[in-house]
């Protein structure tokens, strides 16, 4: 029972993080390999605020998100106008730099020993509520002029610019929103495990989330949620296979992406409206952009 609750909590936290990555990678087509660092910022800043200054959870969470946003502005302003591949490189560098910083500033963060003693404030209820709220926010974003502009510039930046879309601004908005949500996921994580260490927040974390977004289907928020649930739970289910479970995990991901390149859900979204009435002659194509 306890294991189930813990898996569910981790799933909910992953859903929060993946909704953030979905905005950036799914909607806008940018790959941030420094997304894990925002989670680290969330966990460490909020954790330190709670341990050293006795801040309550909501205040610590707000503080961490503000710090995450400031970091995102510092990284984003010079990078966002670069070509997409450079953005991945710069965010990778940023992520590793944050991890190194956490490792080196032993006096504050405890360095490689990690930071322990964060109060356990994240409950299953809080995690699930957070996930639902983030989903609603990101859904609102996707179905708005911002979401549409993100999709447009992902598909064709040149055409988007000639339609009057301020591409850099829209990218920046997506990046900031994504950073804020991921930072919050880090807060939840830190306050659940009560112990964090820098190595948890390297680029592999970021890559893991990008895999989840692709696994679920890059245009589908529904897919992102299902994928984060499946892929968070999968290692637990495969526990019997012991050391083979990482291999099994990879094989499953590869098989799905090989036979269904658009991910599990492609562009499909579960929505109350579409369940109530048929969507007419909307034709779906197998291939994404």
């Amino acid at each position, binding site marked *: 029972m306890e294991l189930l609750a813990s898996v569910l909590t981790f799933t909910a936290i992953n859903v929060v993080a993946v909704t953030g990555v979905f905005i950036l990678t799914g909607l806008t087509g940018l790959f941030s390999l420094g997304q894990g660092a925002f989670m680290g910022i969330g966990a460490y800043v909020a954790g330190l605020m709670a341990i050293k200054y006795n801040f309550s959870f909501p205040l610590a969470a707000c503080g961490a998100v503000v710090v995450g946003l400031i970091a995102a502005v510092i990284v984003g302003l010079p990078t966002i106008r670069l070509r997409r591949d450079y953005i991945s490189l710069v965010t990778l560098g940023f992520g590793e730099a944050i991890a190194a910083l956490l490792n080196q500033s032993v006096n504050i963060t405890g360095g490689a020993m990690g930071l322990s003693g964060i109060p356990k404030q994240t409950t299953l209820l809080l995690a699930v509520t957070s996930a639902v709220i983030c989903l609603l926010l990101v859904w*609102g974003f996707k179905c708005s002029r911002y979401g549409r502009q993100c*999709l447009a510039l992902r598909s064709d930046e040149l055409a988007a610019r000639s339609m*009057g879309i301020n591409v850099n601004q829209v990218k920046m908005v997506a990046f900031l929103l994504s950073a804020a949500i991921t930072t919050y996921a880090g807060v939840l994580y830190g306050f659940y495990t009560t112990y964090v260490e820098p190595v948890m927040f390297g680029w592999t974390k970021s890559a893991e989330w990008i895999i989840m977004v692709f696994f679920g289907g890059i245009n589908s928020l529904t897919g992102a949620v299902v994928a984060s649930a499946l892929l968070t739970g999968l290692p637990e289910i495969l526990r019997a296979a012991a050391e083979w479970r990482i291999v099994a995990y990879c094989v499953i991901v590869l098989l799905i992406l090989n036979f269904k390149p658009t991910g599990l859900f492609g562009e499909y979204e579960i929505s109350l409206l579409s369940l109530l009435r048929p969507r007419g002659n909307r034709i779906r194509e197998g291939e994404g952009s």
Partner: protein
Amino acid sequence: MNILEVKGLNKRFGGVQAVADFYLDLPEKGIVGIIGPNGAGKTTIFNVISGVYKADSGQVLLAGRDITNMEQHRIAKAGLGRTFQNIRLFRGLSVAENVMTAIDPLTKYNIFSALLSLPGKFRAEREAREKALHYLELVDLIAYKDWQPENLPYGLQRRLEIARALATGPRVLLLDEPAAGLNPKEVIDLIELIARLNRDLGLAILLIEHRMEVVMQLCQYIYVQNFGKTLASGPPAAIQCNEEVIKAYLGDEE
């Protein structure tokens, strides 16, 4: 009064002078054409006017305002809409949504009402959608509004690009080979559509085209480009019997 003026435009790519000292006047509500063999620098002219490339020298004036080397999205907002030679529609968005993206930069609601789905968002979204459908009606694509653009026949994709360009609310429309790849019937429909947009919306149109029937029927004035230079310019009748032009197109008589 000219709505679009290009003065002494130069653009060089390495050793290639793509556009050399190019002048153009597009009168208000006029239709002007640019023709010329492949590689004559016609699309480069469009790309410099619409801000894709920076001009090496020269000036572009839109309704008297200097738009030379402004950022692309600012030029679009200043009133310059365009289509592309190789169709560039947004995949992953429906036909109606493609048109809505052109309206979105002008829509007024902020990120917070987007995230929280506040009432103002729904009002603005409904208005934007109605506008988009209006433009789809203009180009007779309303029946396809929920389709994915890549599933449309080629001719209709070209029309969708025009609808999307119209949705930016342009004063000048640049059409880059709008008839390329169309069958004869579609070409006739396209000529009718361009004439209608020009007449009903009072839109000034600058077009690049290889199909002579399009250029000759629509344009009041034609510029002929060859190797970056303007070979000749004048009304269609004068261009048709211009010796230089015939030489460039058909080769020299030995």
